[in-house]
């Protein structure tokens, strides 16, 4: 009699476990449907929050070594791409300023390990429009191993070296 009771209890326990797993899958599926409802087309007619929601200190998705172990590669790529685009946008906004702090922040990113951020920083340097950095840009180009990147730095230096429209040549 006892073995039958034990077997029954085990069967009930497995059954309950199965029901729990099934319920959790159903809820997971519903969450996915709710998230899908947030696509932009579903936002039509709603008032949008303030524009260009660039966080001042964006959560750096450039994962640490620990995170590298935990986060799947696809999500890592997405987070990193987000970080890169956010950082480049921040640099471009800084380029619209005229203060040395902004230029220093942009300049520091010219040595960022990420090539896309370095490229964005270079465009921001050009947008900032400070011709005094031309010699430093030429030095940087000379120290850059990648020929294509060195050429783009030299091109930026050449462009900055031109007089702005309205200023006669040779008046720098």
């Amino acid at each position: 009699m006892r073995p039958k009771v034990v077997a029954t209890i085990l069967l009930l326990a497995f059954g309950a476990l199965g029901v729990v797993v099934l319920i959790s899958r159903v809820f997971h599926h519903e969450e996915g449907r709710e998230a899908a409802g947030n696509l932009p087309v579903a936002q039509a007619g709603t008032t949008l929050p303030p524009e260009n929601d660039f966080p001042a200190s964006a959560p750096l998705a450039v994962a640490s070594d620990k995170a590298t172990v935990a986060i799947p590669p696809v999500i890592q790529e997405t987070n990193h791409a987000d970080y890169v685009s956010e950082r480049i946008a921040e640099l471009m906004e800084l380029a619209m300023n005229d203060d040395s702090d902004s230029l220093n922040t942009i300049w520091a990113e010219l040595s960022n390990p990420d090539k896309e951020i370095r490229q964005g920083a270079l465009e921001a340097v050009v947008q900032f429009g400070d011709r005094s950095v031309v010699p430093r840009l030429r030095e940087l180009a000379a120290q850059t191993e990648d020929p294509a990147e060195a050429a783009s730095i030299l091109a930026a230096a050449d462009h900055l070296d031109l007089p702005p429209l309205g200023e006669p040549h040779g008046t720098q």
Partner: protein
Amino acid sequence: MKLKTKILAGTATLAFLAFAAGSLQAANQVTNLLTITATIQEQGSTNINVHSGVTTVTAPTKFAFNTKQFLALLAQDEHAASNYNSATFPPGAKLVIVVSDSNAPYFCQVVDKNNNFLVDVSNILKFQTNIIFQLYSGKTKNYSFGVGGDPTVTTLHVPTFGFDDSGITNGVGFQCSMVGLMKTTVTYTIVNRSTLVVTTSGRIASFAGAGTNQSTPFLVTGSLNATGRRTFR
């Protein structure tokens, strides 16, 4: 309409002008930071040697032209037109293009560093594209399979953008028109199952155009970027 059709249709509408993200004035309008880097070339000078009879024309004279100079011209013109109370914009001012997802016309504005509206410059700065000639491609996701697999749509088109202050009395006297192939990528990313982030990156890697600066003809070449980012919660 199926979700993927909605995404493609919505993206095509938003992205044909290469911009999506943000709102300054009303719902369904999107705002993008615009930056331009250009080289302007004017006719070189002519030297006639009366002794030898040789005429020498120097190479075209080059000038740098970027977003800040664009803004400087716009400030002077809008001040001359009594649309703005100063002949300069504050440091950090930005040029943005606001595009509607309806058939309403887009418009160009200048905002300060905190995105506060300064002046509408659509009377001078025009940005147009022909929606018939746009090619889009990308990846969509059937969300009944769950979140993830974030959609990305890329659009190719050829916008024309121009600066014309000829209608402004005592304006700077700058007119030009430029054209180039623009590639725009709009990415939808769902974060934490409830937040949608729309990121747009548009670029004309190489444009060309012509114009006049105080009646002096010039040619212009350069690149243009338009970037935006919006978070829907």
